[in-house]
């Protein structure tokens, strides 16, 4: 069935609620309203207020209670209204959820899924467009998943719910309704921690995730048509832990790498991928690694957004440089 990412996520949540009574879904305005973006629409009607419910505006309370639930037999899936609001509950996420397994030597696990819309391109302001994934790279214990299309979103969310550790599930706002893709109505899962080779190529590897996968594909198409360059596009799907094997295998093949993400450049996923490539396959590199990213500024106002975000044109510039065209 053709689904938007919203519909795919909604379908995944409904199936998880149906399959497993331990699953509860809660957050701000997710009940009757179905959430700001309607990802949880109709779920409360279908599964009742006992399992799908609204909370007060208390992010720290939401995450804190969900940790308590997760370490005592439930499988909470919580929505934080925008990824920018994750800052409000950082203590519970970073100091508690991520560390409970380690500090209890495995006595407790924290099977918690935190869903949060992130990313730019729809004229939302700062704190409503921020890409915060790199903040959590320094938080051992968290898995960070960022789907790039409806099919992946549904399968990855199923895996996130089944995972025994806390998963931060970041949903790109622009991708929510921008296109439909063939998505099974029944349950299926896509493993966490594994990247996906979206398009095979031989000259240069582009690593991207979330909305930037389509940006990379668009640039790859243009590069093929205009310059005959064969581009390999890899969708990371999970940005932590990184699929280092997939990254190394691709760079060993192509000898060139470009990383695209909308988060700021400094200390970002791109920086980490660059380091991984240096550690694992430095001598395969024919050219310095390229990065096409957001700038090291707070997320800008709508009028400057198009300038801020990576575009196929910006990726093309990087491609021409790395291919010496």
């Amino acid at each position: 069935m053709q689904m938007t990412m919203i519909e795919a996520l909604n379908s995944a949540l409904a199936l998880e609620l149906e399959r497993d009574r331990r699953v509860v879904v809660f957050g701000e305005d997710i009940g009757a309203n179905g959430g700001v973006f309607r990802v949880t629409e109709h779920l409360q009607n279908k599964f009742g207020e006992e399992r799908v419910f609204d909370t007060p505006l208390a992010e720290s309370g939401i995450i804190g209670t969900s940790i308590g639930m997760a370490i005592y037999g439930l499988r909470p899936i919580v929505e934080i209204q925008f990824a920018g609001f994750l800052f409000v509950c950082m203590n519970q996420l970073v100091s508690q959820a991520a560390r409970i397994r380690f500090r209890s030597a495995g006595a407790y696990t924290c099977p918690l899924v935190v869903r949060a819309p992130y990313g730019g391109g729809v004229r939302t302001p700062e704190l409503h467009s921020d890409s915060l994934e790199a903040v959590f790279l320094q938080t051992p214990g968290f898995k960070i998943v960022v789907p790039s299309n409806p099919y992946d979103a549904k399968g990855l969310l199923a895996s996130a719910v089944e995972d025994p550790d806390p998963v931060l599930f970041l949903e790109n706002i622009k991708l929510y309704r921008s296109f439909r893709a063939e998505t099974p109505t029944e349950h299926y899962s896509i493993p966490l921690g594994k990247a996906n080779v979206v398009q095979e190529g031989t000259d240069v590897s582009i690593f991207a995730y979330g909305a930037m996968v389509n940006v990379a594909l668009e640039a790859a198409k243009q590069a093929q048509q205009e310059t005959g360059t064969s581009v390999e596009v890899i969708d990371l799907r999970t940005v932590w832990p990184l699929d280092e094997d997939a990254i190394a295998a691709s760079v060993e093949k192509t000898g060139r790498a470009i990383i695209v993400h909308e988060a700021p450049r400094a200390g970002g996923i791109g920086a980490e991928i660059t380091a991984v490539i240096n550690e694992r396959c430095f001598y395969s590199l024919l050219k310095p690694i390229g990065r096409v990213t957001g700038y090291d500024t707070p997320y800008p106002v709508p009028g400057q957004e198009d300038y801020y975000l990576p575009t196929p044109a910006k990726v093309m510039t990087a491609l021409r440089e790395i291919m010496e065209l």
Partner: protein
Amino acid sequence: MAISNATLAGLTRTQLLEMHYMMSLLRRFEEKSAEEYTRGKIGGFMHLYIGQEAVGVGSITNLLPEDRVLSSYREHGHAILKGMEPRVVMAELFGKSTGCSKGKGGSMHMWSNELGVYGGNGIVAAQLPMAAGLAFAAQYQGLNNVTMCFFGDGAVDEGAFHESLNLASLWKLPVVYMCENNQYSMGMAVAKAWAVDSLMPRAAAYNMPGEQVDGMDVIAVYEAALRAVERARNGEGPTLLEIKTYRFRGHSMTDPAYYRTREEEHEWRNTRDPIGIFEKRLQEQGIATQAEFDQNDARATQVAEDAADFAENSPDPAPAELFTGVMVDNSTALSFRRERE
């Protein structure tokens, strides 16, 4: 030498003597911990429960094995009272592999799934929303468990306190909030930190019953906690108890305590010691004798010594233990890096 069958607060003589023993054990255990810390056997920070024994003993005596306990970093006593072996607690303090968290948690992180002990927490008030979540999970799964959450007077100034109490009251969760008001959040006196002079207005703000209790009187704590636990177990929702107590030692082992006078400390130790108060009462009512107290104390001292010996003679965790328990499997980059090294 008058030993009667008299009871106190419905507790039998055996139960009362057991409570006395547990108070003695917490005292001797913490004294031993302090000694080992000074000897350099325990690293990091350590927060002693000395002076507050009546709070833990009076309240946890009311709990069943399946009930849940969360606490702050002053939690050695709570873990022992919930059934954790003193040896296992001491080994965790030493950072040894025989500790409850295999030496990976340390003083602030006593955990046991079997015993329902959920820490210890290094962040003030972080355990409060988690307590509401545990209580929610119990209620959702149809378990008749009570969650008892200990925290200090500093925690009530954190936002997490308010978010937790609001949610617990809203959802009528079976939680007992135990504020151990030892009158200083580190060096900050309650009088300087709170805009109100008691927790009662804050209980009222979240539409839950509150009680102020003399925390140096183990029986008073027992009775107040009993009411709160029964409310929770009967599905009547959460209760906030403000237990007024005093820590006889510093905030941690490295606290110079410039914020209070030595006279004040002596006054409390000499006239308000919870163990002394309890002994006096038991003797006056002809329930127990000094000889029995001495016997309890000797046993407590011996158990504390044994715990320290056990910890000292236990093995350190293997270095590779560092890489376990971060995430469930070996699919992490972390384990991959370790393999590559």
